[in-house]
């Protein structure tokens, strides 16, 4: 106790409360971010790992190299393809599911909600493995179901054209429940009186959705879009498990490329520049969405 009293003279209690968390976050988050930034201007590689004195400052070389690296452009293209299709699809489906489940006509709401939500909490690695077999061209249940409705079998993960759509389908299935819950919360915050007033004035359900629900949900939609996008830009596990980035690098994502460069080839400087480009893209997209929101208000 005496020790604690003594400490009290020098530091305030709030500092003691903040110190553990802030020290941890500063040391193991902020310093690494800064370090990554600096490392991205060096040629840190496997020799640097053994002897740090071999690491040299190379200015913007990594970024220039990145700019000329066709594999990086491929990864960039694939990631944008994924984010720009899976993102809106996810937000749209989760909004649709939320609106349906919010309907007064629906019985057993919590059961349906739980059903749609279940994929969200489950382990992505396990789920990717399950879907790898679901997508099996000969024995997979997806092609079997498609066969029943008359669609010819698709080599989902083996065909360069279909591999990314396959990952998109799985990612949407896995994640839409999360946004759905946020949308349901948003829907419940819309005053019922608005709908009643609109009904009295003769608005049909589509008009009510368009003129009341959507505008009232705009802040929620923005939030959901941003977190979905940030998460989707970090695509890694699905291609790692299901396609290893193939076929023909069509599912190679930015993070998968960074992982290979950094942790398999130990091109640490180069991989750091990839990480920073990813950060920059996410940052830019967040700003664009926030701006978009402000303009529409």
């Amino acid at each position, binding site marked *: 106790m005496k020790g*604690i009293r003594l400490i009290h003279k020098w530091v*305030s*209690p*709030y500092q*003691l*409360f*903040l110190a*553990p*968390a802030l020290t*941890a*976050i500063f040391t*193991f*988050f*902020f310093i*690494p*971010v800064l*370090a*990554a930034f600096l*490392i991205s201007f060096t040629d840190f590689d496997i020799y640097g790992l053994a002897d740090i004195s071999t690491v040299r400052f190379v200015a913007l070389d990594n970024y220039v190299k990145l700019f000329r690296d066709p594999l990086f452009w491929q990864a960039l293209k694939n990631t944008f393809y994924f984010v720009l299709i899976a993102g809106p699809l996810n937000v749209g489906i989760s909004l649709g*599911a939320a609106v*349906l*489940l919010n309907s007064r*006509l*629906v019985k057993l709401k919590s059961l349906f909600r739980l*059903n*749609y939500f*279940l*994929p969200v*909490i*489950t*382990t*992505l*690695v*396990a789920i990717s*493995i*399950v879907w*790898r*077999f679901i997508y099996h061209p000969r*024995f997979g*249940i997806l092609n079997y179901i498609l066969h029943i409705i008359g669609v010819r079998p698709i080599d989902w993960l083996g065909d360069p054209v279909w591999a990314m759509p396959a990952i998109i389908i799985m990612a949407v*299935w896995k994640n839409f429940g999360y946004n759905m*819950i*946020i949308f349901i*919360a*948003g829907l419940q915050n819309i005053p019922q009186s608005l709908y009643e007033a609109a009904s009295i004035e003769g608005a049909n359900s589509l008009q009510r959705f368009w003129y009341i629900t959507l505008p009232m949900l705009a*802040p*929620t939609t923005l939030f959901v879009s941003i977190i979905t996008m940030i998460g989707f*830009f*970090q695509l*890694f*596990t699905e291609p790692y*498990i299901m396609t290893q980035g193939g076929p023909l690098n069509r599912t190679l994502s930015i*993070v998968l490329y960074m*992982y290979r460069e950094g*942790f398999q080839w130990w091109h*640490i400087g180069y991989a750091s520049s990839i*990480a920073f480009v990813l*950060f920059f893209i*996410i940052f830019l997209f*967040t700003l664009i969405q926030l701006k978009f929101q402000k303009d529409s208000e």
Partner: protein
Amino acid sequence: MKFKSIILHLFLIITGLLTFLPFWWMVMASFMPEGQASVYPPRFFPNPFTLVQYKLLFQRLNLGRAFFNSLFLAVTATGISLFFNSMAGYAFAKYRFKGKHQLFKLLLSSMVIPAQVTMLPLFLMLKSMGVINTYLAIIIPGLANIFGIFLIRQYALGIPNSLIEAARIDGASDFQIYYKIILPLCKPILITLGLLTFLGVWNDFMWPLIVLTDSNMYTLPVALANLMGEHTRDPELMMAGSVITVLPVILLFLALQKFYMSGIMMSGLKE
């Protein structure tokens, strides 16, 4: 109205079944003998029912060890980060100090930085500390997190100041107030955050893949990914491994569903 309701329910049931189908197939295939999940047309029930895949995983493939690693890491990391985050969240909610709002804003805005940016330097750092391939390599980066602090702060803001002042008049120290008043009042949010953290550590893949290099240290996702490399043609075995990985989180979620949902909804609230 009646017709509309039937259509709506029919739609929900069909999409619900489709959503559930992957889980159904995963569980059923895990009880199939070798080869039964690789037939056309696919089977949706095992015949005969067998536990042979599970036995193989635990007796020969050392998945029990990975299960223990996952459980131990998730519990430890959750415990420590709850302690750190709750103290910081409380301080941000209830103490007045210079630069508080700027500091909090800085923390919040840094949430757009993807974790991957930190991974390479963090790896080098932990390597120089000699903790690569130990439990510490997983625990250290998760000691505290910004989202957790945010969640606790939002909740603690709602605690009346009069309670804290009354305790102070009664002679309680700052730590006693935190421990005896704040923590019990924050129980719901602590459960929520604990659940989120537990699931986060349990489900995490990329970081454990990087820092756990020895198969004895693997967590379930890493062990599973590794197993997949050797058993691409054994769906029954891989499904059993997936069930073992997924089942604990599903059970935990079902038990604490209410807390999880409130956590998500809170994360959607703005200042």
